[in-house]
């Protein structure tokens, strides 16, 4: 539990302000911690007197940590296509592996039958090598055509047990966030969700996993000092892939999955692809979003037009979704999707915290809103205070004129 040094505490209250859970209070000039303390450490970080600490029982690291070596990337492959995040992770994995002087391997699971025309899984494996993998463990089986938490998890866990990588990375996609927690539990390994920054600590090679918590309002850096592998899911669109290099050499290791690994207690009966503009939201470079200020469903025709002009995807705030102007898959924010595009254009969105947490990692944020006091302007890179119904059509016209000339 949290230790408070009564001698050192001056009752300044910095800890109180830093606590997300309202678990620490100053009473009679002294910090007092309540039962709802989660030991997150935010108060320890802000205390200028060094009066707060969380005694760790780290103990000796188990001796066999050094027998785990190499960085692995789970290369997501679905409907005959590699997920872009697989290549991003290889870029990040390569950087970490070079610091540790170890190999980078990718694990590729699927059925080559789905993309036989494009060379099947073999072609995907070569693509992974061209983007930085030294080795690709490839399981090509018709039983892996559909994603299954059981089968995919069994195989990945078996391979990790057998080859003992020190780090395993996967995309924080629907698939990664579904089956990787099972794999980590099977392996009794630490797992950090949705990381946006990765590094290794020089002295002991610990993976430093940084992720937003509380909807992006605080950042936390997490380590797994006692267990291997160190596992993390990583947010798409954050890490940079290496440039494709055909001359890179790598080995493809074919895995024959045992029948028991392929057995699944769940079965996909039907797989439905949504319209393209819905599905690309998390991967889009440009996102155009609309909110309450659009007033009705017709307002979104204008948003779609701007998105199409820029080659981007369409998004919405919860207010617009709840009003029935646009379906839920477009919703960005706390109870919708989290996006981190190059450009996010917020039209008629006031910028409630629940919306901001879903998009504030965008590189450039453009806000168009009638109310100069709208909180969206606090996070905006560029802002126009004005009527969306006037500004957006003019912007579309300007952009079209510019692309024509």
């Amino acid at each position: 539990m949290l230790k408070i040094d009564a001698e050192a505490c001056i009752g300044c209250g910095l800890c109180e302000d830093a606590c997300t859970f309202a678990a620490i209070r100053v009473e009679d000039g002294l910090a007092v911690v309540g039962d709802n303390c989660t030991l997150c450490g935010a108060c320890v970080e802000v205390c200028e007197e060094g009066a707060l600490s969380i005694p760790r029982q780290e103990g000796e690291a188990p001796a066999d940590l050094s027998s785990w070596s190499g960085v692995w990337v789970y290369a997501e492959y679905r409907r005959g296509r590699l997920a872009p995040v697989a290549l991003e992770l290889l870029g990040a994995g390569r950087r970490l592996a070079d610091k540790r002087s170890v190999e980078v391997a990718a694990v590729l699971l699927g059925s080559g039958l789905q993309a036989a025309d494009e060379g099947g899984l073999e072609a995907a494996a070569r693509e992974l090598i061209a983007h930085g993998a030294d080795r690709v463990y490839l399981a090509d089986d018709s039983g892996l055509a559909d994603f299954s938490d059981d089968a995919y998890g069994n195989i990945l866990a078996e391979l990790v047990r057998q080859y003992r990588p020190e780090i395993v990375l996967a995309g924080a996609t629907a698939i990664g966030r579904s089956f990787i927690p099972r794999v980590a539990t099977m392996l009794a390994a630490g797992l950090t969700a949705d990381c946006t920054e990765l590094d290794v600590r020089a002295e002991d090679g610990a993976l430093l996993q940084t992720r937003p918590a509380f909807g992006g309002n605080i950042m936390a850096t997490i380590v797994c000092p006692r267990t291997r592998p160190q596992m993390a899911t990583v947010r798409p669109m954050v890490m940079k892939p290496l440039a494709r290099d055909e001359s890179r050499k790598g080995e493809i290791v074919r895995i024959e999955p045992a029948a028991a690994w392929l057995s699944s207690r769940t079965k996909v009966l039907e797989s439905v692809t949504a319209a393209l503009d819905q599905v690309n939201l998390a991967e889009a470079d440009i996102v155009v979003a609309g909110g309450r200020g659009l007033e009705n469903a017709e307002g979104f025709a204008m948003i779609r037009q701007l998105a199409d002009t820029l080659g981007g995807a369409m998004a919405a705030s919860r207010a617009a979704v709840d009003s029935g102007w646009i379906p839920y898959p477009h919703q960005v924010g706390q109870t919708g999707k989290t996006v981190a595009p190059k450009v996010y254009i917020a039209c008629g969105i006031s910028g409630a915290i629940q919306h901001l947490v879903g998009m504030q990692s965008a590189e450039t944020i453009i806000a168009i809103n009638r109310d100069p006091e709208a909180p969206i302007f606090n996070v905006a890179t560029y802002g126009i205070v004005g009527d969306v119904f006037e500004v957006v059509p003019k912007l579309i016209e300007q952009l079209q004129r510019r692309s024509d000339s």
Partner: protein
Amino acid sequence: MKIVICIKQVPDAKDVRLDPQTNTLAREGVQSIMNPYDRHALEEGVRLAGEQGGTVTVLSMGPPQAQEVLREAVACGADEAVLVSDRAFAGADTWATTHTLAQAIRTIGGADLVLCGKQAIDGDTAQVGPGLAERLGFPYATCVKKVLSCTDGVMQVQRLMDDGYDTMAVQLPALLTVVKEINEPRLPSLKGKMKAKKLAIKTLSAADIDADPAQIGLPGSPTQVVRVFSPQARGERTIFQGSVDEQVAQLARELQQII
């Protein structure tokens, strides 16, 4: 059918504001609420129990004040409530949390179906559902947006994927995590409120659930937080000036440079 719903008490994001000067959180007066996704898990459990026959038990790991969300869940239709609470659980990561919840579920006699929200809004990990399923030896489906049927020990559900959705068959006993699309949660009924007021909430300690001391709380957590900090404030901000046409022209110019 015995249905267990896992719920978590979390700080209400509605009360959380960014201080525009410092770009940090203003946390005064933050209220605790039931995790919004768990509300949908509860509703689905109550609906299924009504349709299939069965009981709904709500389960929470947390400090004594987490009783509040359990009572609220009972007011919204749950039959029983169990709180697993012990100072030894503090600082648990998802690995330690799933051990605790799995032991608690075993202690109360197991379950045919466990329902969780997709994720909690404070940690946003979405790891407890799948991890708990594995601890229990259950198959699972995450991000379920619709339950189509439940017959002969098999559930058919639709689960959200990044590119659409999959319709899946899942054998019971199983665990599902749900998204808010799945239903519209009901409000507490008057009868439910009366029941919640009177209900004795069963409280279980680490010893009661026979928890492995090496797998609970901070010491039993493989992941450890080494640093917590505020995200970097965003850089320069430009609010364009001039007529609408001039502003739009400036914006179009900037956009063209970025893209």
